[in-house]
């Protein structure tokens, strides 16, 4: 297990280097000159050249790449062209809102995916129609689901708020940055409840696609497992069908579903940008959404690096968890 862990961590670092190299190359390709962006478009050529030398933008590319990685590790991701603030401080102030949303979506997606997988794997009347429903849900683009939810629960029923993360002008700013928890910590449960109501629609929109994807993988591996010899033994011992499913099938099927969940994180992160834009959620997704029309590449690259790194690290952890649960993977 130790050698597997070390190998996996080494390849994670390689992938992170590839990620930074890709973003570095994109920065070179992009028509935005970071020096001009800093000193101003109308600045004198001598001033620009001096700044270019001072900032190290006339170094050879490998040296510049080294500085880029060094800066990224120090938390220096450049200055946003739109807000004029360092990208890192922009992200730091917006991250808790996005983190809360993704966390909430995961909390919704896990039981949803499990239920969908188990229910569609079992043979019962109408399971064909259920499978068709699952396929349809997998086909809904997040922006359509988001606006349909707004039409139903906000416009028609007026049950849920459609935009933002809170109705309070000055919500408590607490230790965690997560409004649902900070409200409780400050003894204001009404704030928490309000934050929870704001989370439901964007959270559901974000959760549906990964839940269905995990459900479909789970269904496939449960069906494959139900044909396995050890399941026949378990049945012939007289165990109930439910117990066979939960104790002898689900555990073996968990690995592929977990891997699928890790991979779906990439889709979730793209959807995060769409969903935050629709629900005016004040997080890093809206930040990207607003940066795109302004061609604010430093901001977009900063978020890409952050989300990309989160994706790579999460998938490494998923692999390690899988290997811990199933020794066959380690070889």
């Amino acid at each position, binding site marked *: 297990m130790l050698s597997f862990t070390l190998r996996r961590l080494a*390849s994670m670092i*390689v*992938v992170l280097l*590839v*990620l930074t190299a*890709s*973003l570095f190359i*994109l*920065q070179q*390709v*992009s*028509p935005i000159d970071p020096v001009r962006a800093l000193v101003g478009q109308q600045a004198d050529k001598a001033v620009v050249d001096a700044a270019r030398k001072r900032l190290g933008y006339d170094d050879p590319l490998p040296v510049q790449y080294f500085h880029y990685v060094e800066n990224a590790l120090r938390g220096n991701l450049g200055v946003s062209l739109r807000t004029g603030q360092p990208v890192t401080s922009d992200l730091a102030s917006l991250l808790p809102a996005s983190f809360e949303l993704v966390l909430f979506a995961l909390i919704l997606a896990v039981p949803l995916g499990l239920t969908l997988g188990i229910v569609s794997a079992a043979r019962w009347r109408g399971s064909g129609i259920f499978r068709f429903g699952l*396929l*349809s849900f*997998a*086909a*809904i*683009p*997040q*922006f*359509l689901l988001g*606006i*349909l939810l*707004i*039409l139903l629960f906000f*416009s028609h029923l007026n049950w849920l708020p459609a935009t933002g993360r809170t109705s309070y002008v000055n919500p408590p700013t607490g230790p965690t940055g997560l409004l649902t928890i900070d409200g409780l910590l400050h003894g204001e449960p009404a704030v928490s409840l309000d934050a929870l109501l704001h989370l439901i629609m964007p959270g559901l929109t974000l959760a549906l*696609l990964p839940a269905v994807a995990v459900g479909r993988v789970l269904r496939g591996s449960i069906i494959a497992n139900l044909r396995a010899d050890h399941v026949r033994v378990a049945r012939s011992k007289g165990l109930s069908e439910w117990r066979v499913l939960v104790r002898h099938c689900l555990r073996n099927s968990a690995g592929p579903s977990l891997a699928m969940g890790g991979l779906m*994180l*990439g*889709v979730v*992160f*793209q*959807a995060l*940008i*769409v969903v935050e*834009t*629709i629900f005016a959620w004040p997080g890093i997704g809206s930040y*990207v*959404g607003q*940066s*795109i*029309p302004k*061609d604010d*590449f430093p901001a*977009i*690259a900063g978020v*890409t690096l952050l*989300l*990309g790194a989160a*994706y*790579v690290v999460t*998938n490494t952890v998923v692999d390690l968890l899988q290997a811990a649960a199933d020794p066959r993977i380690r070889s």
Partner: protein
Amino acid sequence: MAAVEPTIRRRPLLHSFALSELLRRLRWTERFALAALAFITLLALFGPLLAPHDPKLATGPPFHAPSGAYPFGTDDVGRDLFSAVLYGIQTTWLSALAVIASGVLVGGTVGLVAGSAGGWIDNLLMRITDAFLALPAPILAIAVVAALGPSLTHVLIAVSILWWPYYARLVRAEVRALAVRPHLEAARLAKISWLRRVTRHLLPGAIPVTIVAASLDISNLVIMLAGLSFLGLGAQPPTPELGAMTANGLQYLLEDWWIPVIPGVAVFVLSLVGNLAGDTIRDMVDT
């Protein structure tokens, strides 16, 4: 002595059944899925010919609800949404097919070369593939398009760069599995050239699994391309594109729901047809 090629029947695409027999065995739902796939493809190719109006021009009253004259209504400046959706379907569907074609071509070649060559070539190519595969393609695509500047061509370039590794892995695994089969050993012993072994004996075997993966991929790509378009990264206005139409109509959602909802529903239909057809094709090839 001239090399004698072993007379081994090529693995048929759909295993033991002839295509016509297979179609006869399909359930009506599966026939429907395949028919829908054909219909959408035809619609994508020829749909704009059916468009009653120019989708870029205001040809009617603004905010006109769906009616006989304007089946999908008109948008905020009076452009006909039915015509715009027909053009949008063309863009989205053909883009998805183009990305898959390039992914299959590039990934398939890499996988075929890696799997059949083995050794350090295999090692090197698969290391590169794995590094690409470990990156989150949907987010990186946004950064690539943002760096190049928003346009449909750049979206296609960005997504194509990121989409091949999956097919490379798939084809390589299939080729490795085939390479140890007896008929390949026979071909090697018969001194059939490497190139001929690869093209005649390995490539055909990797086709079924690639077709299944590609057909299941359509729906993923439709949703992803529509998402990029929604974020303003695809074709620029006034060129009609489904995701961008929803994004522009978002501000009118509560009063004039059809403006953002109908283009979104079109994306849903495309993606659903991709899903249903993909499932059907998988069942056809796997059974």
